[in-house]
Each structure stands twice: as C-alpha cells, then as structure tokens.
C-alpha cells in the first residue's frame, strides 16, 4: 500500500515535472523570441542638425532626417597623413543627394568647407568635389560608428584622411574665388622676410623652434586687405585658410616640417607643413628651403641653387622687367630674358642671385628678399600733375652717392618704370621780363624715396661740367624736379638731358645737365 502510495506520488510528481518542463520550455522559447526582439539594434538617433551654409539661405537638416534618407554602402579608400592606405566600408548619404533637395550640387561650388563640432575645419577643393562624392557616413564596416565619430563623418574615396571629418557639424558651400590672385605684384623670400620680424620660441613636440606671427608677416609685406591666405606645400598639398585663422597663428621657420603654419588653438590636422608658397592678395611668399625640396637644383659655375625660370613658372608670372630688392633696400632691375638664366643660391643663411658669366655684376644681388614684376606700362597715380612719360626716348644716368650701401646709378629707364612724371609750371623774372615755362620731370623727393633715403641734411647737385650746388633739405620740396621735358619738348641736348628745376622766381640754382647727386 505504501509502495502504491509512493508510486502514485511519484506519478503525480512526474506529471507535475512534465508540466513544469513543458511550461519551462514554453517560457524559454518565449524568452528567446522576446530576447531576439529586444536584441534587435535600435534605430540610430542623434539629436541636433547639420548646418549647411552657402545656399540661397542657410539651412539645418536634422541628423535623424539624414539617417532616414536613401543610403549607400560602399568601400572607401582612405590615406593617412603618413601615406598609409586603408579600406573600410561606409554606409551613409551622398551630400549630392542632400543638396539636390535644394536644387544644388557639389560641383556648383568652388570649394566646400567641412567643419566639426570641435572646430576642426578643412576645405575640399573644386578638383575633388567636382569629381567625387562626399558621403555623410554613420556606419563603418556594418556597425554604427563610435560616439567619437557620430553623428556624421565625411568620407571621400581615395582622399587623405584630413578630409574624413568626424563629428560633422557644418558644411559651408563656397562659390567664386576667395581673393586668390594670380597676378602677384611682389614675391617675398619667406626666410629672409622672417628674419626682419620677431622670431619667437615655439615648442613643437620635443624641440623648441623659432616662429613668426602670421599677422606680422602679412602686415609688413601685404598691401591688400584679403579674406584668406592660400598655401601650397612642396608635396603639392594646397589649402586656403581664412584670415582670422592666420592672424591667430604662427609660421614655424625652423625644425621639423618647417615652414609650418600652426596655432595653439588649431587642431593638429589643420597645420600646414612644408610650405612652399603662401599667397595673399598681391603678394606671394616663397620658401627657398621648400623650393630646394620641390625643384631640382641648377648650377652656375661653382654655385648651385634654384633657377628663377622655375620660380616664375611655378608662380605663373611673366613680365618684361623685374626689380630685385635686397633686405637692405638695394635694388637692381633685370629683364626677364636675363633673369630666367640666373639662380638663387644660399650661402651662410643668405640668398643670393647668381648670374652667368658675362652678365652685369650687379645682377649678383646678395640677401635677396623681394622680387617685383614690373608692369609694362606704369599707370598714373591720379595726380593732375602726372603725365605720361612713355614717349620719352633720351637715355641718361645720374650717379647717386652717399647712400647707406654706397652708390647707385639712377637711369632714365628706371625713372620711367618706377616714378611718376610730373608737371611743373614756373614763372621766372629775367631781365625785367617774366618767363613762364612748363616742365615735366621727376620729383627729387621721389628719387630719394625710391632709393630708401628717409632722412637727409642736404643734397649736392653736380653738373657734367663739374659745377656743384648744395641745397639744404628745407629747400627741397614737392616742386623740386629733375626735368626732362621743357615746354612740351623732350630735352635732347646731350649736355643737358636732365635739369634741376625749382619753384623759385629765379633760375640761378637750376643746375643743367645733372650727372651726380650726393646725399648728405
């Protein structure tokens, strides 16, 4: 009986166990299904909007709206700053598809600026945006991106990683040319120019290098107000930087990767290394150190350097005549036909022009700092007294002595190309008669200014026959000219090609045939 009872209990228990097992199985299955539902990844969602500027009006597109747009999944090749290539599969939306909603496309613009929420910004040039899609990606290799890259990462196939902007916050579409001038009025040797500015210590990784402020460089050498500066590195990397960024930054002139543009608040990815040229408005700065990396060396005699021909071709400059100016202000004019045969060589930190044998010695200018391409025709500066001197044919020379760096030969060609021809009407009493004459010539003060004479006590004017006249500075003014035209006719008497004419009632001090000026 007890055995039967026990068996009964066991039977009941078995039934319960069986029921329990069925119930447990059911629960497990249910849980599995529920788990499957719970484990499905949530749809990507990110608060905020992508700002797009540069359309007819600035717009904001929510990140969630972008996630819900038709996407692509493709493999992209990325290139790191060290040249390493990597391939990843990205899922995202083409920027062109976003812009199409507003009737625009990438290739409508000169460049597109991508800005991250941490301030990092990079311009994608027209050459890229006209040929390749910028994709606004949010998945990589099948997985949603890490938080550090979200909400969006710009990716461009086959391009450097600097364009792969994570945490994309703003896109700026820029049309037109941002102050990039191809007609430079001045080429400045960056290393020489830097030495005229304050060189500050700048810690770069483990070394303390020397740097100049970008604002000081532009303030001293640029005459135009511009909005941006364009960089080109010797590996052909190009970048345009806004002026406000330049003004906060430094150009590191020594050490690794120099010349290098950087700023304390600028993300490292926005530094521009190994600058070859930087241009702003009418001035372009050329780094000779980078030029040595960029060009093959040329040789003249025992000297090696960079040929001027290569430099002019790089900068797309062509002019009949160039004025080369040294750091101390000394100048020499060289026609293009001669200049392209010369090289710039470095010696003890100074850059010197080396000309082939047979060319004038003064071509071998030392400590070259600035090259001015000359306009074929010099335009009037707007003064009613300035006339056109293009028709003048007489050739004359005036030796100017007493300058800081010695003597200088001031020629008629130089006067025509660099100075304004002005008019002076005089009224002189001679033999109780008033003689009124019209003169055209070059202001003495303009000649002195051209020769960088800032301060003087007197000038001695000497004629070809040896006669000398010393005039104190107080008697030399805007109406003291070296005349070459008298009453509408060019002065062609070889003994009197150029005459000192003053705004005085008597002409006794008007030296004829001036051949020498001595600055005291």
């Amino acid at each position, binding site marked *: 009986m007890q055995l039967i009872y026990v068996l009964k209990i066991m039977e009941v228990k078995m039934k319960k166990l069986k029921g329990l097992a069925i119930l447990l199985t059911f629960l497990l299955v249910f849980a599995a299904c529920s788990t499957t539902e719970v484990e499905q990844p949530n749809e990507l969602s990110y608060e905020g909007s992508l700002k797009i500027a540069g359309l007819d009006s600035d717009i904001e597109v929510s990140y969630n709206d972008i996630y819900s747009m038709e996407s692509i999944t493709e493999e992209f090749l990325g290139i790191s*700053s060290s040249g390493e290539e990597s391939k990843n599969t990205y899922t995202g939306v083409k920027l062109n598809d976003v812009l199409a909603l507003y009737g625009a496309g990438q290739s409508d613009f000169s460049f597109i600026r991508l800005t991250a929420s941490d301030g990092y910004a990079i311009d994608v040039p027209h050459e890229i945006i006209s040929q390749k899609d910028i994709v606004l990606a949010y998945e990589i290799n099948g997985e949603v991106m890490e938080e550090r890259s979200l909400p969006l990462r710009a990716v461009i196939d086959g391009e450097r990683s600097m364009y792969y902007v994570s945490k994309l916050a703003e896109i700026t579409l820029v049309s037109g040319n941002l102050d990039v001038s191809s007609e430079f009025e001045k080429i400045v040797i960056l290393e020489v120019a830097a030495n005229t500015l304050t060189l500050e*210590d700048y*810690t*770069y*990784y*483990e070394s303390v290098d020397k740097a100049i402020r970008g604002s000081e460089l532009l303030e001293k050498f640029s005459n135009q107000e511009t909005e941006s500066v364009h960089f080109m590195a010797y590996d052909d990397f190009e970048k345009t930087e806004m002026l406000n960024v330049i003004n906060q930054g430094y150009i590191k002139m020594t050490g690794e990767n120099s010349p290098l543009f950087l700023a*304390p*608040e600028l993300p*490292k990815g926005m*530094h521009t290394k190994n600058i070859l040229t930087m241009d702003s408005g009418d001035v372009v700065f050329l780094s000779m150190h980078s030029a040595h990396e960029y060009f093959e060396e040329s040789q003249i005699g025992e000297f090696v350097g960079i040929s001027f021909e290569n430099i002019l071709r790089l900068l797309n400059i062509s002019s009949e005549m160039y004025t080369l100016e040294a750091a101390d202000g000394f100048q020499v004019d060289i026609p293009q036909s001669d200049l392209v045969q010369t090289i710039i060589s470095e010696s003890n930190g100074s850059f010197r022009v080396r000309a082939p044998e047979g060319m004038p010695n003064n071509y071998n200018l030392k400590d070259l700092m600035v090259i001015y391409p000359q306009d074929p025709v010099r335009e009037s500066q707007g003064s009613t007294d300035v006339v056109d001197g293009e028709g003048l044919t007489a050739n004359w020379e005036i030796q100017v002595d007493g300058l800081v760096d010695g003597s200088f030969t001031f020629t008629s060609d130089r006067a025509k190309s660099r100075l304004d021809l002005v008019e002076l009407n005089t009224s002189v009493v001679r033999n109780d008669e008033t003689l009124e004459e019209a003169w055209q010539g070059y202001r003495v003060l303009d000649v002195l200014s051209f020769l960088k004479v800032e301060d003087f006590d007197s000038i001695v004017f000497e004629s070809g026959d040896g006669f000398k006249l010393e005039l104190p500075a107080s008697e030399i003014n805007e109406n003291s000219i070296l005349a070459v035209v008298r009453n509408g006719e060019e002065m062609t008497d070889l003994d009197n090609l150029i005459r000192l004419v003053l705004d005085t009632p008597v002409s006794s001090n008007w030296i004829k045939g001036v051949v020498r000026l001595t600055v005291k």
Partner: protein
Amino acid sequence: MKKFLAVLLIVALGGALYLINQDEYLAFVDMNVTRMRKHEGDEFVRVYATKENSRIYIIDAQGYNPGLMLKVEIDDEDIKALEIISHNETDKYGGYAEQEWFRNRFLGEYPDKFELVKIRKEAPGEIVALTGATITTRAIIDAVNLCIENYGG
C-alpha cells in the same frame, strides 16, 4: 579519502583567496613599499610609501579616451618619476605622452600646481602641451597636481 579531498579543497580555496587579494599594481613599483590605503579612492587607485620616504601614486588621469593610468613618484622636493602605465590615447597625438622628452617636463622640483601653456615655457611650473594633444596634456597635469595636493595634505 574524504579528508584528503577536504584538505585539497581548503588549499585550493586558500590559493584562490591569495590570488584574489594579490595587488596587481605592485608589478609597477618596487616591492619594498607599504600600501597607504587611507589615501586611496577616487582617482587614486593605489598609494604606496617607499623606504626612501617618497610616495608612489597609481592614478587614473581621465585622458582623451578612458584608461590613461599614470605612476607618479613624489617626495618633499621633486617629482621623481612619471610613467604612463597604460593608455588608449591616439598614437600620433596623446600617445606621445609616453615619450621621455615629454615626461621629463614634469620631473624635478615641482610647484604648488603645474600650469598648462601652449607655445613655450616662460616660467617654472609651466608645462608646454603636447603638439595637438592639449586634452591629454591637461589630463596628466591635473593628475600630477592631484598627487602634489595629496602628498602635501
């Protein structure tokens, strides 16, 4: 047999307990140190006193990415050592913190508080940031300053 199994179990448990209580950070310091538990907590993962009367801190520095752990040795006069035990900083940015030339900026006589500068050092106590890695530098400076403050307290 049962007794043998019991003894074996006890030995095994004892061994497990020993392993659990082993201080893994001793691998980064001289074994002749005394742990100062009362100074530990928050960022201070471990604090040890050495026989040379210096103190060693193992500190979590809260870098650009989690996992920046430092070892700082300090005495009455100098920061005697600064080492990066582990980090997840980006190699070409904060990763340079491992370089001796950067860590050397902290060594020697120390101020009440190190300050971060970005271009050049102009005064004692200034630490020039790693190029492109201001956040990592700031994290290390803050961590070392905490050690200075704790040591002085």
